[in-house]
């Protein structure tokens, strides 16, 4: 337990006893030491004492007892036995929940004693437990400032090598020699670009005798846009990016890609990592809307249920995914555990989870307009004008004129509409009658082409018919009457969506009748089927029949009205249409967030303010902090140099992708359940260096790539294999099977088909379908439209990509900080027999024939970066003569030398 951190949260609870003494009742107060402690010792300490702390609860120390156990419920709330979990659990009638679970239950007297003691203020002498401090888990400790060992050793080219060598020597191992140049350049390109170097690039590097040839090659590779495409994929894995929503409907998410493109761009332009964090959590505050796609990368259950509890659970699952992804991606912490109880392994009390939830409480799944920078400026000006108009409107007389039987104008802010509905709740007499309902979009009455419907029509009267409501003819003889006295509704479904700003209606514009006039009504607009917005109604009008309300005719309000009209004109001139939509979350001011008892959505507890993890400090936001401000504050806290987790986690992530295993082998979990660093000082040195280099990811790559550690050969040796088969100590560069994307992109590269165009909507390898639950059937054959890099291939959640899905592609169902590496017969079948590979082998054969060189030689150079030796060459040639060049290409595309990182 990490008591220290909890004490920040509950100072009130600990101070309360002394003040509670003031409201002492008659009779002596219960004495804790004399009376309460013996009861607790007899019944509770066996499971919740110095030896054992079941469910994280300890009752023999003051601080821990007040805090409570893993459930997150406060153990003792001074002067409030009802809210004290201790009292609740000893007194609860349900035997299954009552404590102690076995053995003697507490007597009625003992229970009453504890109740009285708590209600008197739970006075408990200071036992020092509040000040007890435990050393925090290593990852929460400040970054060390180590000095690299062995800097004099000839092998040590960078501090990285010093740390690695020192650790190797502890294990009685030595580093391997430098890899040959072919392996080095192939390793670098496959690692940084996920593509092969061309034979020309290989030759150039082999012939480059300059001292800094490697450094130049690294710089060149880092400057290529191919780099961002490769490394963005690693990040997209972590955040479970997909182009579909998941769950049973699994509908496409067609505007997710701007986020994917944002990530690619961010890596390519070396966006400082602290900025990258801010943009993803609150890009809307800095003109980077697409970046907040991060917030809603998770799956979205679109199935709507009528069960309120289930709907609440779905929402809670969405929020949990946001908190979880943020925790894993930036902090290397698995926060989801704290949804139901205090984290069992890490310093994350349940309350922290809900504080983080409150940060995201205003984020809904969905699309927002993607504005350009210029648009954003126009928009903010528009908002200013809106405020101005609001002020002017406030100066207008507060109530509109009373309803007239002849004609009523309802003006409202322009709104997009598919349907308009007038709901009548009362009339001055009988069934309501409306002679005409006009709906205006600019100067057009769009009601005229709309389809009317109603709650029910007056029977059998040729004057009063539904179709009269929008026939353009005024007066009682062409009107509609409801079939219910005093109420009814009339709806117009527009022939096409329109922006409307006013509705005009009357009972009888020929002014013969004044009966049947609605006296209480609302005008509603719908842009999405089933969702209605009230835009106007009788609520701000003077009561029917009142003569007042003429104030609008006064000079003052005329002036105001013209000011308003002028401001609206200026606002219209600033109208922008978004250049595109982006699936980056719909943002709105949320209501309060509650802590949920055991994570149960129906068991709300206290309101929780938006905040970061208590172990990282405090954001000091009010309960009703503006939505965006919450996310900005969280981002700044996460990216603060004072937070040691953020740089450690990212430095480790980068290391993990270069070497296949991180210094911490669990890149998404730096908690006590995760791995401990194999080279702790190296990790801190990298993290420090990362911050010093202005959070530059490219600088971090460079630091790692220039080390001798990275440049070792990957060939094994007996001592290494015997002592460290997993190569955790890096006695060689660890070779490994390439990821699905790399294999596919390299195949396209070797056939000369790879299309390097960047960005945009991407492509799908599934047949299009519009079933209400999507069924994804792989396309039978693929063509140039599908020959772009795989990072642009639509990622369908939970659906295995054809052919390459068997190569441990994450399914985007959960965060994936680290991919599996399995080898299966299904992979072999797919790569050996799949239509895509067979087709590509044919294309590669044609490509080789047109290359001008000897096909075997060119194939070896392109695929393996080296020419074939004499035996290889003659074996290949006789195979081609016997079979075909296509068959030769099929074998090359399946070969280990191609699909393993050297």
């Amino acid at each position, binding site marked *: 337990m990490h008591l220290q951190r909890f004490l920040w949260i509950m100072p009130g609870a600990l101070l309360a006893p002394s003040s509670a003494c003031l409201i002492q009742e008659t009779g002596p107060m219960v004495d804790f030491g004399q009376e309460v402690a013996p009861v607790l010792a007899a019944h509770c300490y066996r499971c919740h004492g110095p030896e054992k702390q079941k469910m994280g609860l300890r009752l023999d120390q003051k601080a821990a007892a007040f805090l409570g156990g893993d459930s997150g419920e406060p153990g003792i709330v001074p002067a409030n036995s009802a809210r004290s979990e201790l009292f609740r659990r000893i007194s609860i009638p349900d035997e299954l929940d009552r404590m102690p679970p076995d053995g003697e239950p507490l007597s009625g007297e003992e229970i009453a004693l504890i109740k009285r003691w708590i209600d008197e203020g739970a006075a408990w002498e200071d036992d020092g437990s509040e000040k007890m401090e435990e050393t925090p888990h290593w990852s929460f400790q400040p970054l060390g400032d180590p000095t690299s060992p062995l800097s004099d050793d000839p092998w040590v080219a960078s501090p990285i090598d010093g740390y690695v060598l020192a650790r190797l020597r502890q294990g009685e191992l030595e580093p391997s020699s430098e890899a040959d140049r072919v392996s080095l350049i192939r390793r670098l390109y496959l690692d940084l670009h996920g593509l092969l170097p061309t034979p020309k690039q290989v030759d150039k590097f082999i012939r480059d005798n300059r001292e800094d040839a490697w450094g130049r090659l690294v710089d060149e590779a880092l400057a290529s846009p191919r780099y961002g495409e490769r490394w963005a994929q690693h990040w997209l894995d972590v955040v479970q990016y997909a182009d579909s929503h998941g769950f049973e409907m699994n509908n496409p998410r067609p505007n997710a890609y701007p986020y994917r493109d944002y990530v690619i761009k961010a890596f390519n332009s070396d966006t400082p990592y602290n900025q990258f964090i801010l943009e993803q959590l609150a890009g809307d505050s800095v003109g980077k809307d697409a970046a907040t796609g991060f917030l809603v990368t998770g*799956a979205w259950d679109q199935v709507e249920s*009528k069960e309120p509890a*289930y709907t609440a659970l779905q929402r809670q699952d969405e929020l949990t995914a946001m908190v979880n992804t943020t925790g894993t991606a930036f902090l290397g912490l698995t926060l989801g555990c704290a949804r139901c109880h205090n984290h069992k392994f890490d310093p994350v009390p349940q309350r922290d989870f809900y504080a983080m939830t409150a940060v995201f409480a205003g984020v809904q799944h969905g699309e927002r307009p993607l504005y350009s920078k210029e648009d954003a400026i126009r928009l903010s000006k528009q908002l200013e004008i809106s405020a101005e108009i609001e002020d002017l409107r406030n100066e207008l007389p507060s109530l509109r004129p009373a309803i007239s039987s002849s004609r009523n104008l309802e003006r409202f802010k322009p709104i997009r509409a598919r349907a308009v509905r007038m709901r009548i709740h009362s009339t001055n007499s009988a069934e309501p009658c409306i002679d005409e309902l006009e709906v205006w979009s600019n100067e057009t009455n769009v009601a005229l082409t709309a389809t009317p419907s109603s709650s029910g029509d007056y029977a059998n009267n040729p004057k009063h018919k539904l179709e009269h409501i929008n026939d353009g003819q005024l007066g009682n003889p062409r009107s509609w009457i409801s079939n219910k006295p005093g109420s009814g509704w009339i709806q117009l479904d527009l022939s096409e969506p329109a922006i409307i700003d006013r509705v005009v209606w009357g009972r009888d514009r020929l002014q013969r009748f004044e009966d049947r006039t609605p006296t209480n009504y609302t005008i509603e607009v719908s842009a999405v089927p089933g969702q209605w917005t009230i835009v106007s109604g009788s609520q701000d009008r003077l009561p029917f029949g009142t003569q007042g309300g003429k104030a609008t005719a006064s000079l003052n309000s005329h002036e105001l009205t013209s000011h308003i009209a002028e401001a609206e004109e200026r606002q219209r001139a600033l109208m922008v249409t978004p250049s595109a939509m982006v699936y980056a979350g719909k943002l709105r001011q949320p209501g309060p967030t509650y802590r949920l008892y055991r994570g149960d959505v129906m068991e709300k507890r206290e309101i929780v303010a938006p905040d970061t993890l208590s172990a990282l400090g405090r954001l000091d936001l009010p309960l009703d902090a503006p939505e965006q401000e919450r996310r900005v504050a969280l981002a700044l806290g996460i990216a603060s140099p004072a937070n040691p987790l953020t740089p450690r986690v990212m430095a480790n992530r980068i290391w993990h992708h270069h070497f296949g295993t991180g210094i911490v082998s669990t890149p998404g*979990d730096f908690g006590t359940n995760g791995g401990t660093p194999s080279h702790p000082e190296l990790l801190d040195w990298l993290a420090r260096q990362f911050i010093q280099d202005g959070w530059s990811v490219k600088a971090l790559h460079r630091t790692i790539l220039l080390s001798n550690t990275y440049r070792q050969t990957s060939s094994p040796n007996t001592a290494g294999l015997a002592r460290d088969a997993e190569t955790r100590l890096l006695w060689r560069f660890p070779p490994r099977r390439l990821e699905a994307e790399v294999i596919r992109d390299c195949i396209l590269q070797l056939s000369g088909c790879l299309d390097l165009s960047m960005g945009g909507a991407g492509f799908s390898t599934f047949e299009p379908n519009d079933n209400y639950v999507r069924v994804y059937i792989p396309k039978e054959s693929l063509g140039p439209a599908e020959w772009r890099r795989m990072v642009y291939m639509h990622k369908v959640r939970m659906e295995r990509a054809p052919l390459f899905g068997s190569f441990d592609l994450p399914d*985007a*169902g959960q965060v994936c900080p680290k991919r599996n590496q399995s*080898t299966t017969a299904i992979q072999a079948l797919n790569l050996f027999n799949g239509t895509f590979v*067979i087709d590509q082998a044919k294309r590669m054969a044609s490509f080789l024939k047109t290359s001008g060189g000897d096909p075997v030689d060119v194939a070896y150079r392109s695929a393996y970066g080296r020419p074939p030796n004499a035996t*290889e060459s003659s074996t290949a040639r006789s195979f081609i003569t016997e079979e075909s060049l296509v068959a030769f290409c099929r074998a090359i595309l399946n070969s280990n*030398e191609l699909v393993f990182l050297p």
Partner: protein
Amino acid sequence: MTPINRRDLLGHMGSGLGAMAMAELLNAEGLLKNDQIKIDPGAPHAARNPHFKPRARNVVVIFCSGALSHIDSFDYKPELIKHHDTPLPGSDGLLTFQGANGNLQQPLYPFRPRGECGKMTSELLPHIGELSDDLCYIHSLHTKTATHGPGENCMSTGYILDGFPSMGAWATYALGSENSNLPAFVAIPDPRGVPQSSLNNWGSGFLPAAFQGTPFNAATPVRNLNRPSGISEKEDLATRAFLQTLNKEHLKRYAGDTEMAARISSYEMAARMQLSVPEVTNFSSEPLHIRKLYGTDDPNVLKAGFARNCLLARRLIERGVRFVQLFNGAYAMGEGKGNWDGHKQLKTDYDIHGPILDQPAAALIRDLKQRGLLEETLVVLCTEFGRMPTFQEGTKGRDHNPSGFTAILAGAGVKAPFTHGSTDEFGWKAALDPVSVHDFHATILHLLGLDHTRLTYYHNGLKRRLTDVHGHIVEPILS
């Protein structure tokens, strides 16, 4: 990361200070502490020992997708018949998945005693009912969600969310397979298409891809299994041989690297699968009486299709495939049309679906039994949740009911005839001896010789389990 256990580690590394230093490092990383299973990358499906002596060696799950109504099939409720067309007590203002409910509705198919045990089951699935002497009914299942996708996720993976390993993946991760020429875990989709939660039902989640179920059925072969068209057998064989020459040449530079050797053997296994999968899907050796038993040539093509899948399931089990998941019902055709989701006109829908499931599924159990395979095979018939004892307001169908439903177990290690637990008098909520989906999973793993609390895999901060942090073995049903 390949999991390691301490004995193997020390055994492989010999002794010496270096080895101990390495062991210390791994110990510090927490990797030795857990029970993760060591997988040989060259043979990920090699048979592995269970935690204790198993009762079942393999499993067939018959998954009735869309929520099969327990009320109209197996859960006999005389009180429901007595109170037909009266309000369900305690349902004031109750909103279920699709909204309001009408009055109680008696079963749409009459019940009568079946088997020597006299178990009351309905006319909907008479063939299955007739097998009651060999069946163990659990009437008190309950689950966490009333939505199909999450419900199927829960029944197949233990979690309502996407992204968790399926039961078959867990079983094959733990036990490997008895047959190295066939996939260890086969998912057999319904001839009409895939179920609601599709691949989640047989996905490997965060377990290595080696433990994904391989989907194929009697009509649709394994993708990319066959020699590509236009390539002769001679060229195909020669290419494979040439590829292995390339790979062996490459391996010389990486002597001792298991990953590269594993990839070479994966191509050998693939070649064996090319022979063994067509063999298992070729029914020409099945005698007429067996084909008739299943109904593989029934004029009802949907029934015949499902019957062929059932026969395929038996042939897979016979050949030592560890886990077979057989689906009855597909989603894409819409509510109730191709599955058990009878919201609006349950009887009309079930009159179609009943015969498709009934005879073939019963034949599978009978056939396994007559071959002695039922002694070492566990058959599970389940669905994602139950249905309400009421009709939905204004319809002739029943809404989702996660609070009570029925599953059937048969075969290895299970009491039969036996009935465990019950719903309340109307069949709404599990009342006596409730069984959660976690309990259900814990019991299935137990029958396979696996302790559900020890079958773990480290993923992102937690040692994950099929049963999350829950699950108790349903002891009374064990024989």
